[in-house]
């Protein structure tokens, strides 16, 4: 039985014993492959499809599940792989009930990390805000646009004690906006007031029309 297998990933060769997954080999070679669903010993993975790697012949395999028993070569960072991972992650995000302002897990959420790594927008600033849900500025009457603003700025203003003005542009996903505006109304903010503040930065932003549409719909609910 061969005791050692040479795995070549993106040109880097690393030696592992047979039966290790390509993902473990990549970690050993210091190559970062995004992953989400594999939990060694608990779940075999191959569900989120973020860790797909390519053989030189072009066949795709989930690296979390593919065990090597002989010397093999893989490509883990070709542009089309990243593009596929990005689209795949966007699909995953689409059906996630995004409500970071009320989510306990927001400071340790792998979706937020992956969205940074894969350059996928659409997550509210609340996901990066240092204040836990029960200390949110909204509860103190401060009008913060974090719930409907694009994250990616590490909530710089929140960290420095200010509130978010949404300088990176609006969220355009209607279900998030729906929940956000309902939350604003529950806390006693007038929807027009929120739109007034958002106008400062978003007046000519393309997504602002959607924000206003949802705002009116929620406001109209009386």
């Amino acid at each position, binding site marked *: 039985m061969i005791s050692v297998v040479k795995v070549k990933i993106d040109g880097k060769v690393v030696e592992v014993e047979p039966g290790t997954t390509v993902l473990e080999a990549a970690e050993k070679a210091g190559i970062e492959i995004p992953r989400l669903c594999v939990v060694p010993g608990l779940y075999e993975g191959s569900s989120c499809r973020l860790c797909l790697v390519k053989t030189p012949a072009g066949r795709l395999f989930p690296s979390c599940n593919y*065990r090597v028993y002989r010397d093999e070569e893989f490509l883990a960072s070709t542009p089309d792989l990243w593009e596929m991972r990005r689209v795949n992650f966007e699909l995953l995000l689409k059906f996630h009930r995004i409500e970071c302002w009320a989510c306990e897990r927001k400071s340790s959420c792998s979706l937020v990390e992956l969205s940074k790594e894969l350059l996928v927008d659409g997550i509210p600033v609340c996901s990066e805000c240092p204040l836990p849900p029960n200390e949110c500025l909204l509860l103190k009457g401060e009008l913060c646009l974090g719930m409907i603003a694009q994250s990616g700025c590490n909530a710089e203003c929140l960290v420095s004690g200010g509130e978010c003005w949404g300088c990176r542009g609006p969220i355009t996903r209607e279900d998030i906006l729906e929940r956000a505006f309902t939350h604003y109304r529950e806390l006693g903010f007038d929807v027009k007031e929120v739109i007034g503040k958002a106008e400062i930065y978003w007046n000519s932003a393309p997504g602002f029309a959607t924000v206003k549409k949802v705002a009116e719909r929620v406001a109209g609910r009386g």
Partner: protein
Amino acid sequence: MNWTLLDRCCEKCTHSPEKPCPDYIECRLSGPLCHDDERCREMRRQRLEELRYGEKGAKIKVPMASCTLATGAEAVYHAVEDAVKNMGLEATITISGCHGLDFIDPWLELSAKGMPTAIYANVKPSDVPRILEEYFVKRDVSRAFALKERVGAASGEDKVPLLGELGFWAKQYKWVSRNCGVVNPESLEEYVASGGYRGLSRAFKLGPEATIEEILKSGLRGRGGAGFPTGMKWRITRQQKATPKYVIANADEGDPGAFMNRLLAESDPFRIIEGLTIAGYAIGANQGYIFVRAEKPLMAKRLQKAVEEARRCGLLGKNILGSGFDFDIEVILSAGAFVCGEETAMIAAIEGKRAWPRQRPPYPAEKGLWGKPTAINNVETLAHAATIMAEGAEKFAAIGTEKTKGTKMFCVTGAVKRVGAYEVPIGTSIRVLVEELAGGAPEGVKVKAVQIGGPSGGCIPANLLDLPLDYETLQGAGAIMGSGGIVVIGHENCMVDVAKFFLTFTSAESCGKCIPCRVGLRVMWSILDKITKGEGTEEDLQVLRQVAETVRSASLCALGGTAPNPVLSTLRYFMDEYAAHIREKLCPALVCSALIKYRIDEEKCIACGQCAMNCPASAISKIESGKYRIDESLCIKCGVCYTVCPVKAVYKVTGARAG
């Protein structure tokens, strides 16, 4: 007589369940072999005669398959029983499977000594006495649909065509479906009489390796859709060291519009069981399973009865035919999930779990059912294997193309005159199948496209009908061979709606395990839904392609991997229809309800009120002129008025004219 071919002809025959004789099968027809006795030979000839013309020289065959039952075969059977009793006819009544010609269901086959065997089509229970009386009493066949052979003794014989000469029969090559509609599916004796089980006994003679060699030589490829060489699959599974091994017959046939496996299993189940036994023997598995679709219970009942019958006659169980090979089969009925057609999902279903496919490798050949080596073949593939072993590999290899050998059963449905299941050599062109066999489109309907391969296949435009039917060509044209379901789409169907239909199906059937398929298909569906509602935009199409590409390449199993094909092929060939929906907001085929309006042409309307009475949303009311008018705000566009109007006064408009 009460002796059957399966019994021992006399005491000299040494065959017994405890000590089966290896030449038992050959001996049934060309026996007796171990001793010479003219009386035994005569008994066989006489029994064969009885099987053909019934014990009393007259036989009435009533087809009892799902399709014929659906058209009233049950009532026809009772009508035949009553008629025979009332007319005091000396005739035996048996059941049979179905030829696959759905357009003549329910049919009846009458045969008698000295008379040509005649098939009567579209028989109603009330016609039965008249038909029996004409055939048996008046010996007149002029009203028959077709004759199996000419004898020259019946009147009107020349007026009725021979079955063999009819176009939809002559062009077929009934290789694996030869017994369908001919033998009684519940009688092992008739199967053996038709040459059945010669394959198995030859396999025992050759031994496992040589059997695999024979299958490899024949060039048989999987008929389930992937087209993986069957011999190779058996060889890999055989080489595995782990035991016990299993073989599974995939009778899940989830593709909508495909019923060739159902036809085979309901009409000739023993061929499948023989094939599975051969597979078990070749691989060294002692346990086989047949996984049958939930929506086809009769198929499961027939297979179960055949298994019990085979077990009773020593063709399943211990030391089959004295070969020392033990093998048994269990029929498992699925609980309704399209994904079970996928190998590893089927394994999970048999194990009693949710049918979640597993990532390959490891392939089922290495680690399949309960982690043991398993070979999974489609029932049609196994039927081919049995026939190849019986007839020899050369005969099979002579048919088909150089890359793909043999024949394939196709089901042609949709906008065709003769809906049915046809078996043709691989390489036959789609046009032959659709126009010559299935009779082309009915009057007033023009063929726009042909959808091949079910939800994993693609739509091929009418101008490519001359493409040959084989794996590689279809793949190149954006479709796949798949199970062999061919749905002919007329010009009154909208391609965007067809694409959306397939996505509705696959997104509902997605098992939910991996993201691209579970979420991607629903996103694609919502985009197509937007387009059919006239809200689609140009970059929606761009997103649609991008998501389709990701779903196709990143999905875990073939369901997700091939689900985008219908969309991608309609985008490739029918871009003009998408553009009409997006730019001009109209549906050229007048199908998408959001883009069309129903109106009543007041000249043609004869004010009969049928439409108003049937309208579920009570949107139609009488106007001053006495005629009827549709209130477009209430209309749910269900199309009832359009169908019930006796004078076709209701018409559909789309786009600008819809106003």
